[in-house]
């Protein structure tokens, strides 16, 4: 049981490349923290620094009230689940789970109790004598989990543990991980590039980009009030529609200070097809380009003819002038049709022109 606190953590490689540019995160005891961001944003590096697999070149990492910067991974009392599971291929499932306990000189009888308990929880009891190569991907994943939980560490670290599984298994394992973590109540840090995993697992969500933290907070709070255009387009699928406020059509509808903000963001789910304009809201005219029906809902891709001012927002950036509308059911306008969509005032997100600051008007 421990807090994990990162204070102005930095990582600069010998070549001068700055992978982590000063990160501050505070994960409370028993909380589930998810680091999310596009590939190359430094999330895995940060996790490996917490594990002690990468050196820290600046700042402090604090686990349970103790700065661990110079401490060996073995002495940090952490357990890690790797993306490729990193099972010991020459050891049976039992020995894979027992290895960490044996290294710490635990009596064999207790090792047996702990491993069998973990195997029972993870439904691995029947395969304790098998070698990793005789297991399926999902089973290997569970062995990796078992290896972490038998140790009863202060902190669990997960490095994209589900990305090698197929979509269906990923969802069920995601739920399993969350249930297990709740039950064991062990502080966890989880790295993923999948925003859905991030949203569903996290108590605290850390959105990273280019070695920096873009926003930290409760996942729903981040969804409702993204701090930057990066977060706005990264969290939520399909991504938020972003457009310049400087165009006459939008500027006149927003009016006043809001019209001067720079960038307007509207989530696809907040747009409705209607001929009316809600007071204080924004209405847009679109030509329907494409329709995606996924059963319960339909995505309408439309373009605004007059929008020529490109608003940059990586990743998942929409082509300039393209707007996605998410509507329930399967009823959708025809391709090529001209429609009007609108969003109410309190569903509008405003950002400064560079996308770095959220503006509340």
């Amino acid at each position, binding site marked *: 049981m421990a807090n994990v606190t990162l204070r102005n953590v930095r990582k600069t490689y010998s070549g001068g490349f700055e992978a982590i540019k000063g990160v501050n995160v505070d994960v409370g005891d028993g909380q589930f923290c998810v680091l999310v961001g596009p590939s190359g944003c430094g999330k895995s590096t940060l996790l490996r620094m917490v594990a002690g697999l990468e050196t820290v070149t600046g700042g402090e990492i604090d686990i349970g009230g103790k700065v661990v910067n110079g401490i060996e991974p073995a002495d940090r009392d952490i357990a890690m689940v790797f993306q490729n599971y990193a099972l010991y291929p020459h050891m049976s499932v039992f020995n894979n789970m027992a*290895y960490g306990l044996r290294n710490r000189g635990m009596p064999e009888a207790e090792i047996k109790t702990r491993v069998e308990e973990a195997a029972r929880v993870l439904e691995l009891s029947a395969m304790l004598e098998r070698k990793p190569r005789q297991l399926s991907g999902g089973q290997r994943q569970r062995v990796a989990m078992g290896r972490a939980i038998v140790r009863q560490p202060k902190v669990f670290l997960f490095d994209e543990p589900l990305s090698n599984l197929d979509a269906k298994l990923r969802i069920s394992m995601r739920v399993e991980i969350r249930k297990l973590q709740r039950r064991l109540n062990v502080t966890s840090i989880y790295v993923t590039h999948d925003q859905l995993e991030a949203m569903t697992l996290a108590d605290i969500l850390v959105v990273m980009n280019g070695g920096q933290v873009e926003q930290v907070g409760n996942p729903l709070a981040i969804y409702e009030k993204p701090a930057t255009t990066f977060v706005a387009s990264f969290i939520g699928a399909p991504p938020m529609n972003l457009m310049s406020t400087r165009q006459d059509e939008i500027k006149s509808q927003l009016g006043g200070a809001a019209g001067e903000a720079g960038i307007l963001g509207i989530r696809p789910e907040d747009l409705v097809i209607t001929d009316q304009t809600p007071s204080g809201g924004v209405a847009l005219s679109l030509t329907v380009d494409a329709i995606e029906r996924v059963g319960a809902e339909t995505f309408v891709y439309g373009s605004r003819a007059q929008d020529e001012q490109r608003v940059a927002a990586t990743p998942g950036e929409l082509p300039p002038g393209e707007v996605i509308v998410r509507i329930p059911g399967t009823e959708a306008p025809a391709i090529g049709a001209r429609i009007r969509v609108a969003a109410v005032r309190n569903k509008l997100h405003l950002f400064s022109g560079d996308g770095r600051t959220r503006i509340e008007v």
Partner: protein
Amino acid sequence: MQKQAIFQSKLLPYALVAPQLAIVLIFFYWPALQAVIQSFLLQDAFGLSTSFVWFENYLELFSEPAYFETVVRTFFFSFAIATSSLSVALLLAVMADKPLRGGAVYRTLLIWPYAVAPPVVGVLWVFMLHPSLGVLSRYLRAAGIEWNPLLDGNQAATLVILAAAWKQISYNFLFFLAGLAAIPKSVLEAAAIDGARPMRRFWTVTFPLLSPTIFFLLVVNIVYAFFDTFGIIDTMTRGGPGTSTVTLVYKVYNDGLIGGNLGSSAAQSVILMIMVIVLTGIQFRFVERKVTY
């Protein structure tokens, strides 16, 4: 699974493998067959008459105590060369596997000795350890060791083993390096997090995962020590002093080309041939299984 190629003509596939088959038959099977035939023949001292003697050459060989001494000596040499070159190479590979500055240069330099021909290796070591000329001999004598491999059989044997092992280190190093590179880094990281210190990590994770490589190299090194040390022995000691550095292969050469006893020499070759077939058989069985863990 390899797909089967489909040929229109039935003759074409045979024609395509014919050159390879011809080479194998003419240059490998034909001489081998000659050796087998020769091993059943006995020539008189002047090479004027030859008679077929069935297994007499073999029987004579097995009744000869010197032959058994050579067998034991060869096995001892092989064991000593294989273990020393394997352990030194493994140590070097483990150290070179670490992220070092200039690691590529270090690794390349360690591979160079493999390019040195065995007789040259022999000459090199002879000069370094020559009783009157050698650089190292002077230090040994200064340390109070009576060093003269030209007279002392054990010292001569040590010298041959050293030189032969030294030459093989590069080869083993290369394979160990590849073997180490094939071990996923994350497995070692997991072991580190699991509380295993570097030494324990090596013996419980790295070493078992290297075991297929180690086994493969063990067979290769034994074969090397059996057959390829001829050049080293010939330039360093010519089997002497006495017969203290005569191995099975050197004895084939000595008895046949120097002693003129072609029948016995051929019989010895056939025995060596059987040994190498057995060794290769063992190797293929394990290599095909790929993993031994």
